[in-house]
């Protein structure tokens, strides 16, 4: 058995390094200035937020979530409905957070006895039910027509309309969440969460309330995804249930696995790369999805800990002193 290097040693050095890299990368679109680059940046940031939620729920706590798109949709629709009925951005924002908490509780509490692969089945069912309800509840969600003309918010008197505006908003939304996640992982609560995902029985034997940890993880995931939904609604200005299918959920899980199930640094690095790759593959038209799936498959077969996980390991092995 090859000796693996500890991933947690002097973790803050590696985190700080990655974070600096990410922040630098974030500044690049401003230098290029093209609308398309800003667009890709927004997609990458949204994906990052969604995958961070997935990381907390699936990577750390081991609850496989195959319906992230549903949480995303709930946030987007929740925000749009509030804003279209005349409420302010702030009210809608808090409603989305509340909705996220409620959704998390609804999913987390009854599933106390459900674990592992069965839990992933519940999430699939949940995801499809959400999509079907969104498609059929005409009065509330516009059904098959979706919601259109979502008013853009205004900050400091300036109504957002340029793509770069939305990019800045995405940064303002996503980076604090990522920082929160980083602090969370290294905290006592985060450690307990991680332990409960790592080995449920043993963590219970030392006093960790694994049920509570699971619910917290699901709620956090739900809230983060809901915030991503707000971003989506604000940027695109219109919603349709077809944007939140299970295929989308699956591709998010793929990003999680390729980034590294247990490596947040890997996620930080790989999610933008994968988002970029997906956009780049658009040039191949119909072959885009297939090539992407094949790439993901290759990553999974050759890098079981995730490409990002491999990178993190590499950096720690070579450059971090014991």
């Amino acid at each position, binding site marked *: 058995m090859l*000796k*693996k290097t*500890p*991933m*947690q*040693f002097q*973790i*803050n050095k590696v985190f700080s390094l990655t974070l600096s890299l990410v922040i630098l990368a974030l500044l690049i679109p401003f230098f290029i200035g093209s609308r398309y680059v800003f667009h890709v940046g927004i997609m990458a940031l949204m994906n990052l937020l969604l995958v961070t939620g997935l990381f907390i729920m699936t990577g750390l706590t081991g609850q496989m979530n195959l319906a992230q798109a549903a949480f995303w949709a709930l946030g987007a629709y929740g925000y749009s409905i509030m804003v279209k009925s005349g409420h302010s951005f702030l009210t809608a924002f808090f409603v989305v957070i509340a909705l996220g908490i409620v959704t998390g509780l609804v999913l987390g509490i009854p599933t106390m006895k459900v674990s592992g692969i069965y839990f992933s089945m519940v999430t699939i069912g949940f995801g499809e039910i959400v999509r079907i309800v969104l498609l059929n509840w005409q009065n509330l969600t516009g059904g098959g027509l979706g919601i259109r003309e979502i008013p853009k918010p205004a900050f400091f008197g300036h109504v957002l309309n340029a793509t770069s505006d939305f990019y800045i908003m995405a940064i303002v939304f996503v980076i604090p969440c990522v920082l929160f996640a*980083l*602090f*969370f992982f*290294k*905290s*006592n*609560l*985060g*450690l*307990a969460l*991680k*332990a409960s*995902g*790592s*080995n449920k*029985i*043993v*963590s*219970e*034997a*030392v*006093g*960790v*309330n*694994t049920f509570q940890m699971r619910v917290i993880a699901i709620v956090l995931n739900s809230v983060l995804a809901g915030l991503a939904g707000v971003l989506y609604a604000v940027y695109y200005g219109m919603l349709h249930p077809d944007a939140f299918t299970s295929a989308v959920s699956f591709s998010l899980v793929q990003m999680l696995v390729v980034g590294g199930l*247990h490596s947040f640094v890997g996620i930080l690095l790989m999610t933008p790369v994968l988002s970029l790759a997906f956009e780049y593959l658009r040039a191949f038209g119909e072959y885009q999805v297939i090539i992407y799936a094949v790439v993901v498959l290759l990553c999974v077969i050759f890098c079981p800990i995730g490409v990002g996980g491999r990178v993190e390991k590499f950096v720690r092995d070579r450059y971090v002193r*014991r």
Partner: protein
Amino acid sequence: MTVMSEDKKKIDEYVLLTQNVTMSFGGLNALEDVSIGLKEGELLAVVGPNGAGKTTFFNVVSGIYKASSGNVWLKGKDITKTAPFRIARMGMVRTFQNLGIFDNLTVIESVCVAMHRKCLKKQPFMTMREFLNPWGKNKEKAIDILDFIGGFKGIENELCINLPYGFQKYLEIARSMAAEPEVLLLDEPAAGLNQGEKVEISKIIRKIVSSGVSVMLIEHDIKMVSSISDRIVVLDYGKQIADGIPKDVICDPKVVSAYIGKPVSKAEIKPCNPEGFFEHTQKTGSVYE
């Protein structure tokens, strides 16, 4: 729940007590009418042939299984139906025969998890200072515990699954101690260890008992067990067949029959001397203080 007064006296006398516990799976009785008591500061060993129900007993006591009938009392409180994590917070921690380590965590993190409950009340999230300097009070305390058990110098940041098997066993004990238990259940802590490691771990266990923790131990190695325990209980096919000090128990014909598999009479058992069995301890000094 009304309790008879003699029962109550018994419950208070023991820090951990099981009363007429029966555990059945379908038609099979894994445990039948087991009543074992652990006194404060005592080291009690639970032994028996394979399949006797020892681990099942631990599972019932630590809340993973709910007993089909009977009660379990911890420090005077009925914990028969309590959830395992709550039992752990009440002061009883256990180790596991073969499930025992965290896959993704390092040594130091494993120990910190056990302490998280106390820390959570003060500070659930990380402060900026902790982000910049991860070696705070929490971790120092963890290092203290690791030193108490011994042998962990320099490998605090290794992933648990990378450790050699013996270290993993020691780590389990260290982690359990970090939760500051009053009662510690050790499930075959010496399984798979060589003779030297067994002596080491025996010393550690006695050290733990001396520091005030009541310990219940499952082990197969009779020699080791009889040299360090205050009392031994023997289970066979889910029933209690003996309960007493080591010297008496290992010469008990019922116990010998259970282990050999056929009935033996008292006359066939050679006079035995438990202290003499564990030669190592004679040479290196007894593990008894």
